[in-house]
């Protein structure tokens, strides 16, 4: 058995997805083992709820099972594909009324902390330092706009209202911040972020 596990551990992500397309639960389980923690971690962060994050994670993997051809390795890594799926579903959930109420409570609790600081999160090993470094280089207003949009699931219009800032300014901050992040990650040698 151990030998088998070693073998599947050596299969690439793209190969695993191809096997998933042929109904291999073993392959799906291996995808889950490799990327489930990230899918769940992002959903939990956006939703601030373990049970809802579990629902999102389940949805993401069932979707991969049912529509494996939506993953195109020519357009990015499997991890980024699954994270995009997780984020979109988490945002859908957080924008529903009930989740919004929960978020209000979360915001109230967060007020005491005041500081948006992502560096304490359990980042994925080598990437963590590079992302933290890239974030540290961002002007605070750009970083804040990105965090409020991405991690709280707010639209840019909601972010503008929250920060009492013109919508166009928020769009520019997000755009410039993302470009800056990308440049910093490229410089740090992170693959796949250069267009």
């Amino acid at each position, binding site marked *: 058995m151990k030998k088998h596990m070693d073998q599947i551990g050596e299969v690439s992500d793209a190969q695993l997805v191809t096997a998933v397309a042929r109904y291999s639960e073993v392959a799906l389980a291996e995808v889950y083992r490799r990327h489930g923690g990230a899918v769940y971690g992002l959903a939990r962060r956006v939703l601030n709820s373990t049970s809802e994050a579990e629902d999102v994670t389940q949805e993401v993997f069932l979707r991969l099972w049912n529509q494996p051809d939506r993953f195109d390795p*020519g*357009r990015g890594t499997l991890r980024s594909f699954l994270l995009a799926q997780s984020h979109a579903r988490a945002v859908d959930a957080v924008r529903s009324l009930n989740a919004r109420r929960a978020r209000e409570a979360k915001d109230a609790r967060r007020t005491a902390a005041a500081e948006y600081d992502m560096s304490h999160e359990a980042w994925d090993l080598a990437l963590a330092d590079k992302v933290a470094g890239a974030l540290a280089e961002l002007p605070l207003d750009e970083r804040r706009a990105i965090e409020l949009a991405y991690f709280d699931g707010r639209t840019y219009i909601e972010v503008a209202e929250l920060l009492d800032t013109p919508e166009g300014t928020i769009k520019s901050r997000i755009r410039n911040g993302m470009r800056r992040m990308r440049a910093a990650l490229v410089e740090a040698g992170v693959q796949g972020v250069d267009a």
Partner: protein
Amino acid sequence: MMSHHEAAELLAVFALDALEPDEHELIEAHLAECPRCRAELDAHRQVAAALGNSVEPLPEGLWSSIASALPPRRDDEPPPMPTLVRDQTGDETSAAPPAATFAAPPARPRAARGRGRLISVASLAVAAAAVAAVLGISLVHDNNQISNLQHSSATSAAAALTTRGHKVVDVESASHVQLAQFVVTPSGQGYLVKSNLPTLSSAQTYQLWGVINGKAISLGLLGHTPNRAAFTFAGSPTPSKLAITVEPAGGSVVPTGSMLATGTV
């Protein structure tokens, strides 16, 4: 309709899922037409993924819950349909490096394919040994969808031949022998009109490819005795060429052999 400039300005916000629904739809419509924006979006999504890459321990029991929710399939149920070309945001110009994948293993007997009858790790390893480079893939599944379409495509092919703007594509071998003829409509539908392709063994299948920006994208399997078949590339650019290869019965994600025949669209 959103201009390229307007869309490009919003791609970063789109990648964060932070647009209003109406803007989101407008961007999606633009992305379907603009490979440059798709490539830009891919890069933004990689940045977003790096931001959101916060791994947490998985809750106990979550995998069991997922595994038990996998839809059951009867043994005689076919795998998913052969892919069209790709979804509407499919991109043939991504700067991402080629990714490795493997040719799908030959189709196994139906009885061994249902849920609960897993592809063995051994067969996965065998398949993995057939690694091939690929510039961008759509997964290939099986030819059952084409089989289903065969019943309805006789009149459809005839109708396509009367459609305004249709193109007839002669697919020829290197020695200019016509092996098949297709008709392609401006709306992205295609039909096999006639075939001179010799019958293969049941362990093999003809596979149809569309060449888009120099890449071979699977359009589906034609089976071992091509007769009539329908395919679609709606939502993707029209292929510049159609090509046919011989593949193992389950099909392949990338051509594993040289093109048997090609035809310019």
